[in-house]
């Protein structure tokens, strides 16, 4: 039988979370290179983790079998990349936390993903539009990371970049086909674009951590990826006969650990097993 809510809140779970929160070692001091690197890597890994989880929610629900399989495979790529990013984040932090500890035992305010990836799936077109807006950033981001001064980051970026090249081809292709499709599909894609647009800008707003990482040549400054993203988005939206929304207002905060209500719902489903059965292994 599934445990009740009070079981989920057992002292075991609290103790486990505390232990995994650094194995008793003091947290890194903010503003140090080690902390900056941890945050930078967690931002990358949390983006792929949360988007991967969102996409995996389609498993068994997509409009046709081939799309169901494609979505599951993209989710798999993203979760695989998460293991690499969060694994390295745990290493950089040096407190013994594994990729699994970071994925399953942090609470919402310690996740640093952009708000875009936690937006609900809604319909198939909405999911693909979210994917496209993300891929159009993800691809140049990984290209830039291939030149990172940290060779471990460059290696992961090179690996992930090959996979993401297929993601952007697929999502761009489907945005075009659905946008320049039937009246119904066009309307849905325009609606998706209008709803998601205010969540795209966060990708290009840097903070002090980004600045220091960029100065050290570890990661590109978020602002520097805007031109490539604009070019891709403009070209694909034009071909898709979709109208780019006016205004550049951007909801922000995810990269600093301030999330929308949706994040809590994602975590309650994603982390449920580890919270209910602390320390359970596959």
């Amino acid at each position, binding site marked *: 039988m599934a445990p009740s809510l009070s079981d989920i809140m057992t002292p075991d779970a609290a103790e486990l979370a505390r232990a995994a929160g650094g194995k008793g070692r003091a947290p890194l001091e903010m503003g140090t290179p080690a902390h900056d690197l941890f945050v930078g890597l967690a931002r990358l890994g949390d983006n792929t983790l949360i988007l991967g989880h969102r996409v995996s929610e389609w498993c068994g629900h997509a409009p046709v079998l081939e799309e169901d*399989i*494609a979505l599951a495979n993209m989710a798999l*790529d993203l979760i695989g990349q998460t293991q690499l990013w969060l694994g390295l984040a745990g290493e950089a932090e040096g407190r013994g936390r594994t990729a699994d500890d970071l994925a399953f035992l942090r609470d919402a305010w310690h996740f640093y993903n952009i708000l875009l990836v936690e937006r609900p799936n809604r319909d198939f077109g909405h999911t693909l539009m979210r994917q496209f807006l993300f891929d159009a950033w993800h691809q140049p981001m990984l290209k830039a990371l291939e030149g990172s001064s940290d060779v471990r980051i460059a290696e992961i970026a*090179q690996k*992930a970049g090959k996979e993401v090249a*297929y993601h952007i*081809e697929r999502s761009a292709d489907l945005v075009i086909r659905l946008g320049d499709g039937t009246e119904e599909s066009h309307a849905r894609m325009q609606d998706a674009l209008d709803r998601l647009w205010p969540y795209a800008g966060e990708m290009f707003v840097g903070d002090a951590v980004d600045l220091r990482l960029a100065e050290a040549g570890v990661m590109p400054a978020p602002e520097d990826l805007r031109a490539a993203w604009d070019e891709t988005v403009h070209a694909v939206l034009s071909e898709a006969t979709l109208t780019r929304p006016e205004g550049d207002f951007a909801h922000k905060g995810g990269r600093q650990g301030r999330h929308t209500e949706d994040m809590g719902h994602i975590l309650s489903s994603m982390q449920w097993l580890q919270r209910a059965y602390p320390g359970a292994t596959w």
Partner: protein
Amino acid sequence: MSADTLPDTEEVWRWLSEVPDPEIPVITITELGIIRGVEYDADTLVVTVTPTYSGCPATSMINLQIEEKLRDNGVEKICLKRQLSPAWTTDWIADAAREKLRAYGIAPPIDGTAAAGDMVAGRIARMTGEGLTVNCPRCGSANTFRVSQFGSTPCKAAYQCRDCLEPFDYFKCI
């Protein structure tokens, strides 16, 4: 096992060439090109493996099979090393394995057609799309079309033959 009785690395390569890929059992892990090195560090046998895709669920299965194979042959001290760079590419799939893939019903990769994801003349390069001719592994016809960019695993795309109607996987380039 003392130092003078350790199996030489050539022998180890031979053993590894008997380990089948868990997803596509007609080819072996050495034919797939994921074994990047076999060497000794003192008396510990170090086998370097590179993953095909970051999220490939077969990776841990492959590691388990390697360890099992070596243990069955009496190797006690084993270290499996993961190497990400240079990233695995389908170019490393052996020629003989490509024919085995075809006979098994999977169209082998067409070298040099990996997705670049770049903008070409104002649009995303779709080298893997309409421009690519993948022959049906069943009847050989070039009259095929892509059903989806992703097939039964991340490394494959789903295709169908218009002549014999066979749905098949294409091992896409990476």
